[in-house]
């Protein structure tokens, strides 16, 4: 058991070091490029605006006071379409935060979502 412990621990750190080293040899781009797109668009929408885009080929969602046009992403979504499509044109914060078993979306999904942001939800109206 002692040998197994030493072997697995060393292997773990080697793999972590591998990820770290790999990081140096990679171009630094993807998530940072995304945010600039998101900054430029800052229009206000109401929930009724969002409701007009409730179809598979034109799908907006309001999540945490932001409005997203995820039409282009839908074909890439890992789950079956039946899970996501019902939320097109709706306020989907709840669905986003608790995709099955209360499991939140990963930090990466957050970044992915930011790419599709088109504006803010105007809650006053």
């Amino acid at each position, binding site marked *: *058991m002692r040998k*197994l412990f030493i072997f697995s*621990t060393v292997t*773990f750190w080697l793999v972590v070091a591998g990820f770290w080293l790999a990081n140096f040899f990679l171009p630094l781009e993807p998530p940072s490029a995304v945010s600039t797109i998101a900054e430029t668009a800052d229009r206000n929408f109401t929930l009724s605006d969002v409701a007009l885009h409730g179809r598979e080929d034109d799908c907006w969602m309001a999540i945490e006071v932001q409005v997203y046009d995820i039409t282009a992403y839908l074909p890439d979504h890992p789950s079956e379409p039946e899970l996501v499509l019902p939320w097109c044109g709706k306020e989907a914060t709840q669905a986003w935060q608790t995709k099955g078993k209360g499991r939140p979306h990963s930090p*990466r999904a957050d970044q992915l979502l930011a790419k599709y942001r088109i504006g803010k939800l105007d809650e006053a109206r």
Partner: protein
Amino acid sequence: MTSRPTSALVRRFAAPLAALVPPVAAVWWAFPENLPLWRSIAIVAAWAGSGLLVSSIVLMMRETHVARLLGGLESMYRWHHRSGMLAYLLLLCHPLALALDDWLEAPQLAWMLLAPWTQSWPLWLGWAALLLLMFGLTTTFAARLPYRRWRFFHLALGLGVLLGLAHVYALLGGANILLFLIVTTALALGWRLIASDVGAAAHPYHVVRVAHQPGEMIEVLLAPYASALAVSPGQFVLAAFGDGPHYRGCGEYHPFTVSGIEADGVLRLGIKALGPCSQRIQNLEAGVLVHLQGPFGIFLDGTPSRPQLWVAGGIGITPFMAALRAHRRVQPTTLIYLFRSAADAAFLDELSALVRTDPQFELLAEASGRGLPDFPGLLARISQITERDVNICGPMPMVDALMPQLRQLGVAADAIHFERFDFR
């Protein structure tokens, strides 16, 4: 007074089956659907690992009834080690599999998941947990640490489990399965620390008499103040000796096998000086308050159905003394008693007297000096060895040397039982 013997099936399977419950329940609940492969692997590894950590904690609770139910402390400790180790392996895979999943998406993301400075506190908790487990296990496998320091560092593992569960709580909130894991851990760890380590569940006894034996060893007679423990021969208790008029006990719980069980709940313990605390116990006097927990252990459990071969090395004679003093042998029984020199051999007179009164009982006492005894020669003197159950209690090198020789003579593996005087 004796309780029902534990069946071989329970001995073997109860602890591992119990260890399976938390991880299986957790993975069942959390089983990922519609998620990419490596993330799913990471999640399954995380829940199986979390569940096994909880199993590991439950298995070291050290509570008499739980121990009976789960096939004895020996088996529980074995599975404590195994489930803890397996949990660790799975939890090493968990962050790596998450990183690999990200890598497949975009290689830059993988390091972002692992590097602590790009994270927030739920994942810092994960890292802290993993590092504590790593540290705790490093000390666990550092064989030469003194026992007290070893135990202290080992406790880091308990903290690691709590931080790991806090990490999941921070990520997912209070899902039922997680609350089940947290409450189970808190109860088991709380029981262990308060009831067992501090001794809140202990029974008060007092020292009636101290008899000095050959070698650095005493035999103590203990009488209960209130309710007595229901001990059977072969079992051990955890004993913490307090203070007397001229004696200051070290107050910690140490395991000692009962060497005699008498009327009115009076127990005998044979204690050899093997380290600082047991050295101090040599100066024990009558009247000292003692706290006992137990009984534990399934050595010599049940009525033998076959002839017996017993092998005792040094202080390992204690469980056999308890059995011999309790009643006459129902099966032919040969005891090989090994010691360094005759001046070191406890109970020798009493054993010789027993040979004269009990025709079923035979004694082979042998001084073996410093090295290992001549096992082939000794075993050659045992008649019908393959017909016998073999029970061994002594130092580990002795057991290790004896095992292959017994197997070579055709003794079946499941006919050999041994008790170790060490939990590590």
